[in-house]
């Protein structure tokens, strides 16, 4: 895991990397997920989740900045010693594999439900995984360029939602404050899956070129951009559907767009879902990239490019085993449960240990 100077990414690209990793599979289901916990006040929960993540960032930044010349692997090695660090990195490796698998199977489930009900599973999955492998073989700066490029599509994601406002009812958002604080927290938890992606900062920090302050700025900006987009989406959906309807629709954003009709084009949901595929691909690409980084340190694979192919095949193969909706849902539950440890507890422990121990010398392993 070497970092050479010419394949670094700028702070602007960090913004796009984080945004594109965060926005992905969950934007379709997020309004309904938060509705389950706090009903029409879900957007408050999303804002709370954003604030919590901003706090988590306060753990990450001192940690990665303390080890700014080290990758995450050497970071754990220095703080916790070799045996534990191998164990932890193995954990992260499986965590990223699980997240990638979850993305892949949820993507398949949505595509099968909305666009291609009878197309074989392997084909739909192979499309997205092969595109991901094709890009992840390159260095991070190429990935950053691609992310910045496809972020232009977010304009369409926002624009099409304005069609929902043709039949919006502001009263659906009221009254505010009808649930307790505990419910808000629960709502925030259910939106966590949609927020995942900011943790890449831990792993890509050595590849970033820019001052600490600028990095914090662009990561915070990315988090709040995502949170705003989610709030906008959720509010659009809540304004469109009455509280009774929303419980019935599994993908409220798509149903909202489906209802719109114009003399020029019908079924905006099909346009939306096409763009959504790109967002899913970008999320998958980032996790596959992280997987490939870990294959280099914990498996006897020297070249990252081989690791990419290995990781891609592994994810694809395991994803093929998930058949029933129940198993997919159970797996989703499992991933969001373990993600607390990987994005919060372990970095917190690492920071505490690092603060107790001495500051590492530059370039020393």
């Amino acid at each position: 895991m070497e970092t050479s100077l010419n394949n670094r990414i700028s702070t602007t690209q960090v913004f796009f990397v984080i945004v594109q990793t965060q926005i992905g599979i969950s934007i379709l289901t997020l309004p309904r997920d938060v509705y389950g916990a706090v009903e029409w006040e879900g957007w408050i929960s999303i804002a709370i989740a954003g604030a919590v993540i901003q706090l988590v960032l306060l753990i990450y930044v001192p940690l990665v900045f303390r080890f700014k010349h080290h990758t995450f692997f050497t970071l754990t090695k220095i703080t916790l010693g070799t045996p534990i660090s191998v164990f932890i990195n193995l954990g992260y490796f499986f965590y990223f594999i699980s997240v990638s698998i979850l993305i892949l199977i949820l993507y398949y489930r949505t595509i099968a439900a909305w666009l291609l009900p009878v197309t074989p599973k392997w084909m739909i999955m192979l499309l997205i995984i092969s595109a991901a492998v094709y890009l992840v073989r390159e260095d991070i700066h190429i990935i950053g360029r691609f992310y910045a490029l496809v972020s232009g599509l977010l304009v369409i994601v926002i624009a099409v939602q304005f069609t929902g406002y043709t039949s919006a009812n502001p009263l659906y958002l009221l009254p505010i404050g009808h649930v307790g604080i505990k419910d808000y927290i629960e709502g925030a938890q259910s939106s966590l899956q949609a927020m995942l992606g900011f943790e890449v900062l831990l792993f890509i920090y050595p590849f970033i070129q820019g001052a600490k302050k600028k990095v914090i700025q662009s990561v915070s900006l990315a988090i709040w951009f995502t949170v705003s987009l989610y709030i906008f989406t959720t509010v659009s959906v809540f304004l469109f559907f009455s509280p009774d309807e929303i419980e019935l629709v599994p993908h409220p954003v798509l149903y909202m767009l489906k209802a719109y009709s114009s003399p020029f084009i019908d079924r905006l949901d099909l346009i939306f879902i096409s763009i959504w595929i790109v967002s899913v691909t970008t999320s998958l690409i980032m996790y596959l990239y992280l997987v490939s980084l870990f294959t280099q340190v914990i498996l006897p694979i020297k070249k990252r490019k081989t690791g990419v192919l290995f990781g891609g095949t592994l994810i694809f193969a395991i994803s093929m085993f998930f058949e029933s909706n129940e198993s997919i849902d159970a797996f989703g539950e499992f991933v969001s449960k373990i993600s607390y440890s990987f994005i919060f507890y372990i970095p917190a422990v690492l920071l505490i240990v690092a603060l107790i121990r001495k500051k590492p010398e530059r370039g020393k392993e």
Partner: protein
Amino acid sequence: MKFMQLFNKKKRQKNYEEPNPTIADYEIPPKPTNSVLNTNRVFIKETLNYTEDLTENELQINQDTDCLLMFIESLSDEEKLEKNFYSKWENVYSTWDLEKVLKNMDAIKLLHVSDAIPHLLEGKSILFIDGFEYCYSLNSTKVIQREIGQPDNEQVIRGGHQGFVEKMIVNIYLLRQLVHHPQLTVRYEHIGEKKNTKLSLLFIEGIADKEQINEIGRRLAKIKTNKLISSGLIEEYLEDSPYSPFPQYMSTERPDRCALNLLDGKIIIFIDGESTALILPITFFSFYQSNDDYNSRWYAGSFYRLLRLFSFITAVTLPGVYIAIISFHFEIIPYGMTYVIKDAVELIPYPPIIEAFFMELTLELIREAGIRLPSPIGQTIGIVGGLVIGDAVVNAGFVSSIMIIVVALTAISSFVVPANEMNMSIRLLRFPIMIMASLLGFVGIIFCLNLYLIHLCKLTSLGQPYFYPLAPFSFKGLLKDIVRIPHTKMNMLEANKKSKNKES
């Protein structure tokens, strides 16, 4: 293992035995000029295999010293000889006088008669003097060149109407006429196995990247072919990824285009004997710029640039989108259009992909048939192909009329791009999209576009990102390359360009 070795050996031997189709692979053993005139004459005649256009002219000085002038009449300009040589012959009374005359007309003294052969083949004349152990090579090269006219495939409405010709020197002259920069540097390179192809590298020292010039030199040195070297071959050797469908160089016949690029820090390559110049490194968006953009109002210039980029998207995706809509997502058709499309498509016996392929291939055939024919016949083919086939095929009920509209729109869009090589790439890029659209609908199209975009992000031209200014994104580059902001504002951007380029 042994088998493989055998195989390799065989292959190597085969390569060795291959007949050489080169021009200058005939090695002449060095032979000094003999003082006996006849020996030299025989040597030259034998070396040139008694070719009949080898002309010899016997002359005498003071009626005692024999001289012999030899030249190849097809290569030499006899008028030039008459003016520079024969007319002065009357004043020559001794060999001393002769040498004086020759000095004035930049003759080259050759000690070896074997060296005279290449000179002869260049169109020079060789003068032997009896009793001298050297000979003279006189400049009598015939220069026949095309007029400097407007290049047919790169016309502009306003601006210079000069185009490059097949003579490298003339091309460099044309470029130097436009760029009066003291740091404009010309480097000559001889490439190929036998170093028989001459090309020149033009760049402006201080603006062009030194690393890139060195890199070009390294890649040119790798060319180990003994065939006649053409610009296409050089392009492939210079490309970062030869397997990419996108051209990573730009070939142009316009001096003004070259001049603009030269001042922008690009490197120009001329090949002797070809009227096209190669411009390196290049970005995707340079193909969508025309010199007319800079000569029209900036609103118009920007509008047409955006229109060309839109044409790229249409040319690549339109048939695919149509196929996807008809086969998978007919819900997307608005209510008013439903019956129109239903009427057109309902009775067609084939699936849309077959229709589309049939029409696309017909169109490619018409284009390919018309492109190299003289223009009157070419027009006839256009009419027969376009109007007759188009109309008949709809009436016969093979292809829906909407498909004809789609294919025609796509074809027009693909011809909008001002550069020919990009045009070819675009036309090929839409076939995978059509196939994927017929298999998977919008998902297939998105997959293909995803791959194309990833590829464009990966691609580099001499190490420079190919999809700049979109990837890496640069707002100033966007203003400069994708729209055309007014020239007065452009100068401000130019000043900041250097610092911007360093960010990735």
